[in-house]
């Protein structure tokens, strides 16, 4: 299979970034929007073409072939070298499709959403930069290349969250996101160094080669009960936890909603935040075979806890984008736990497939939810649920597409989310009953908060709107319709044919009893939401009072932010940093300033030597000769 043309997929956005970034003042906004959309459209078509060829033609003896295309960039030692290249295998091809699809849709949508904004061209150049970085991350052939793009993705996320840089809250959110993920990435980097030190390679192909002896060699050195190599893997996973906003590094994601809504749809719902999931999937054999999958069980529990906590918090939030943010976190928790409970071969690797399947369908319906929310925000200029109500009359397309997405995420039978969620639950049921029960609860909670949102926005009484809300323009509704289509029919793609941990196809079928349980729970959640929020009533206030303290807890997101603030402000800044600052100022700085002053003073003292008289110079010359001669004879004699 000829894969060289695939390099165009990331290069097109890069070219767009350079073009739009350099000439942001010269290119008129309307043209910038067109160029961006057309460029991403091309990348989208190329990705579809790649997927079509790969999934239908790259099988040899029932196993999907992996294609690599790389060149050595930096050589550290005979064995250890860093490459730049492309890795084409089922999950990277799938991610290409996901990233370009959502990016393309968001580009088209932004032409309407961002219309008239001052930084319109700048916005599109950032979007292109992000798309390039994300595609580079997806195609990376080795850990180091992935790390580089990982950071690039973080940087472009920073730029886009802080896009409204005159707004203090946006700037603070951008900083928060960057610092929190960067902190997690520190673990990632150390993890890469540890893993490459023991394995002698950055390359995914070599790391995932499954020779038992090799792994025994790698894990020979132990530290605190685990092998150092395992610690390295845990640290690598820490990077994934930060990027995917899992507990305990999830605090940046809700704040990141300060960015423009299309950005939230692209980065903080569909693509960047699933990078952590992709990272684990990318190294899945390694995670699975090292120490009997110990790290994988950490992945499973972190995923399960995150998904439960996020779903609970989502119920009480009033900002519609924040509800969606917590929902994203919850769903990514699903993907993580699916990977965590997965095994390697054949049907036992169901969790791996389910995770990727859910990643795909989630990208579609969550992007749709965000873009729909954006459409609502565009119409009434508010994020607060309290300012909304009865919008179904004014915005029919947004209403219907939002409903489809909500049904899909709630796991209503027949919609895409139903199928992928069912696979995850089946995988959890087979391997870990505790996680299964928690996942079913999350399914119910998801349905409840999602329909709370739906009924709150589109039903209930009309609020007093300053202007009569109206449906969004065509550039915004077309992406909605396309994604709604995918949110329904995306579930009918036979994923297990294409994606599996051991690269061999297997057949998965609907597990009827589990499906019935899950959808019943989901429907109960929907019904509860109907009772509570369809019409104005005081049921929700009553429930609030009933739960009392617990409600306050969840409303404040379990005080995670406050705990972190206490640790950073009081302990780190207040105690540790103050002492270090004192040392820096009065010892290090004082010494350096002293050196500078002495140098200057000395320079001032010797200034007079240069008298300007040529006879003095001659004296110095002759003196120099004499001194040199004396010094040399002295040294030579000794």
């Amino acid at each position, binding site marked *: 299979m000829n894969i060289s043309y695939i390099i165009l997929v990331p290069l097109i956005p890069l070219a767009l970034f350079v073009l739009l970034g350099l000439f942001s003042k010269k290119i008129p906004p309307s043209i910038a929007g067109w160029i961006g959309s057309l460029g991403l459209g091309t990348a989208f078509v190329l990705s579809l073409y790649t997927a079509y060829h790969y999934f239908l033609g790259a099988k040899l003896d029932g196993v999907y072939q992996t294609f690599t295309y790389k060149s050595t960039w930096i050589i550290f030692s005979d064995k250890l070298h860093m490459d730049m290249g492309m890795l084409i295998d089922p999950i990277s091809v799938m991610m290409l499709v996901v990233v370009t699809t959502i990016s393309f849709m968001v580009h088209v949508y932004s032409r309407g959403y961002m219309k008239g904004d001052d930084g319109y061209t700048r916005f599109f150049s950032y979007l292109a930069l992000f798309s390039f970085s994300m595609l580079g991350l997806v195609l990376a052939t080795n850990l180091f290349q992935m790390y580089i793009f990982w950071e690039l993705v973080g940087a472009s996320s920073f730029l886009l969250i802080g896009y409204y840089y005159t707004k203090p809250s946006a700037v603070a959110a951008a900083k928060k996101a960057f610092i929190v993920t960067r902190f997690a990435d520190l673990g990632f980097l150390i993890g890469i160094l540890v893993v490459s030190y023991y394995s002698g390679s950055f390359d995914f192909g070599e790391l995932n080669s499954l020779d038992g002896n090799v792994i025994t060699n790698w894990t020979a050195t132990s530290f605190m009960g685990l092998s150092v190599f395992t610690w390295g893997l845990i640290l690598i996973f820490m990077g994934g936890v930060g990027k995917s906003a899992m507990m305990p590094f999830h605090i940046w994601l809700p704040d990141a909603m300060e960015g423009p809504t299309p950005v939230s749809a692209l980065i903080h719902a569909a693509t960047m935040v699933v990078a952590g999931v992709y990272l684990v999937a990318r190294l899945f054999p390694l995670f699975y075979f090292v120490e009997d999958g110990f790290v994988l069980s950490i992945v499973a529990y972190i995923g399960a806890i995150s998904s439960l906590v996020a779903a609970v918090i989502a119920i009480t939030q009033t900002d519609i984008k924040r509800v969606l943010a917590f929902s994203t976190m919850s769903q990514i928790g699903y993907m993580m736990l699916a990977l965590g409970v997965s095994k390697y071969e054949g049907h036992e690797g169901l969790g791996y497939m389910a995770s990727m399947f859910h990643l795909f369908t989630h990208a579609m319906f969550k992007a749709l939810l965000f873009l729909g929310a954006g459409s609502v925000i565009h119409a009434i200029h508010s994020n607060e649920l309290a300012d909304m109500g009865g919008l179904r009359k004014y915005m029919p397309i947004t209403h219907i597409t939002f409903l489809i997405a909500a049904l899909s995420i709630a796991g209503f039978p027949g919609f895409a989310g139903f199928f992928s969620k069912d696979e995850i639950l089946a995988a959890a049921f087979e391997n870990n009953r505790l996680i299964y029960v928690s996942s079913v609860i999350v399914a119910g909670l998801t349905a409840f908060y999602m329909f709370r949102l739906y009924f709150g926005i589109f039903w209930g009484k009309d609020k007093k709107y300053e202007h009569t809300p109206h449906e969004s323009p065509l550039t915004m509704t077309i992406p909605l319709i396309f994604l709604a289509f995918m949110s329904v029919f995306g579930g009918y793609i036979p994923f297990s044919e294409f994606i599996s941990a051991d690269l061999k196809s297997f057949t998965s079928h609907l597990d009827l009893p589990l499906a019935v349980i899950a959808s019943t729970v989901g429907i109960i959640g929907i019904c509860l939401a109907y009772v509570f929020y369809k019409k104005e009533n005081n049921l929700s206030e009553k429930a609030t009072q009933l739960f009392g303290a617990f409600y306050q807890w969840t409303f404040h997101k379990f005080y995670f932010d406050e705990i972190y603030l206490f640790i950073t402000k009081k302990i780190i800044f207040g105690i540790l940093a103050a002492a270090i600052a004192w040392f820096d100022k009065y010892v290090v700085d004082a010494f350096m300033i002293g050196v500078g002053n002495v140098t200057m003073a000395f320079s001032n003292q010797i200034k007079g030597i240069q008298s300007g008289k040529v006879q003095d110079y001659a004296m110095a010359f002759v003196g120099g000769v004499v001194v040199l*001669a004396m010094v*040399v004879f002295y040294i030579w004699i000794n």
Partner: protein
Amino acid sequence: MNLESFLLMRSEIGLLAIILFLLIFELFSNQKQKAAVIPLALFLLAINTLIGFLPLTEGELFGGMFKTNALLVLFKTTLSFGVLILLLQSADWLKEKIVAENKATEFIILLLSSLLGAFYMISAGDFLMFYIGLELTTLPVAALVAYETYKRKSAEAGIKYILSSALASGTSIFGISLLYATTGTLFFDAFAEVITISNLSILGFILFFSGLAFKISLAPFHFWTADVYEGAPINVASYLSVISKGAAVVILMIVLFTAFKTLMPIWEKIIYIVAIATMFVGNLFALRQQNLKRFLAYSSIAQAGFILLGLLSADQLGSATVVYFVAVYIFSNLGAFGVVQAISSASNKENIDDYEGLYRTNPYLSLLMMLALFSLAGIPPLAGFFGKFFLYAAAASKGYYVLVFIGVVNATISLYYYLLVVRAMFLRKNPDAIPYFKSKIYMKLGLLIAAAGILILGLYSPFYEYIFSISNSF
């Protein structure tokens, strides 16, 4: 010896032909044609420089008095290229001020004569040829330093230069006579075979070395530098700091590595002491300079101190690093002096304070100045960084770790004063900043080539590899 073997001297013969042609041109041209000498000289010099790129066999002439090899040819071409840039940068100054006095042709002839001297000096195979070359480089420059006769400072600088250099040459030739007395030969090759470490030979070497140290402005033989640079026309100061110093460094290296190989235990100590003294003197004095010409004078003293680090590893690595550093230094310094020249001729201002706010009015010149100063300071990825890095590597390869440390300390000090100029240009606000002006085409070309040199020498590694590959030729 057949006539063909004279081709070994093609650069020198070409240069001589240009000088003679210009002399005749001066005789037979009328007042209106005088200005044409500038493009004419540029054109001829450019051709002569290009000829230097043609391949050439190694060889010697006059029984070994004149030697040539690939490294020398490369270095001559670099010097010639440097003079070309210098002439481009001075073309406007010549046209506006000197042509009117009927002295433009002389200026060029003197400049090229000095360059011819530099060529012979570095190609020397014996002390006699070396001395003739040294004098031929020095004497025309004395006239050039005093070229702006209407300025008192220029005349003063001229007399200071001629007196100091007379002393230096005298010392040097006295040293040579002592050395002749101990060995009975002037040829480097024969000299190297018979010389032994004795009191007389050491004294001879020190005297000889002092003369060259004067040319390179090593401490304590550097005192003339600042005064002469300040008084001389800017392009002459530039010539002194770049061409004349570069040539002297290379011949010092050749002499040390060949003729005085036996004396290495002695001269490495001398170089060691002088390197430290020169770096500190150059840097500490540069800290307080206000006048940019004086500032660059001390900066060039400090740079000379750095070059000595490369001499200490008397091998292929050492000679490659020295030649590379000198080439880099030529381009960086020409860039800095070029900007000073451009600004001085537009506004007559030469002080660091005057440069405040320059970035707002003349962004391109400021950027170029920054590039040149950063290269001199040794900031990656500019050429100066690699130059310094290789010098440190060469010194460290022979175990001179303390010296490398002192070098790094001095590089840090130098960063301070280079940044002082950059800060004045970029960070200071000044309502009376030098107003925007447009440079003429020659000046632009001269500055552009210097800037390109700074970038290309740093980023294009085959250049260094080529120098390294031909550095084993002596």
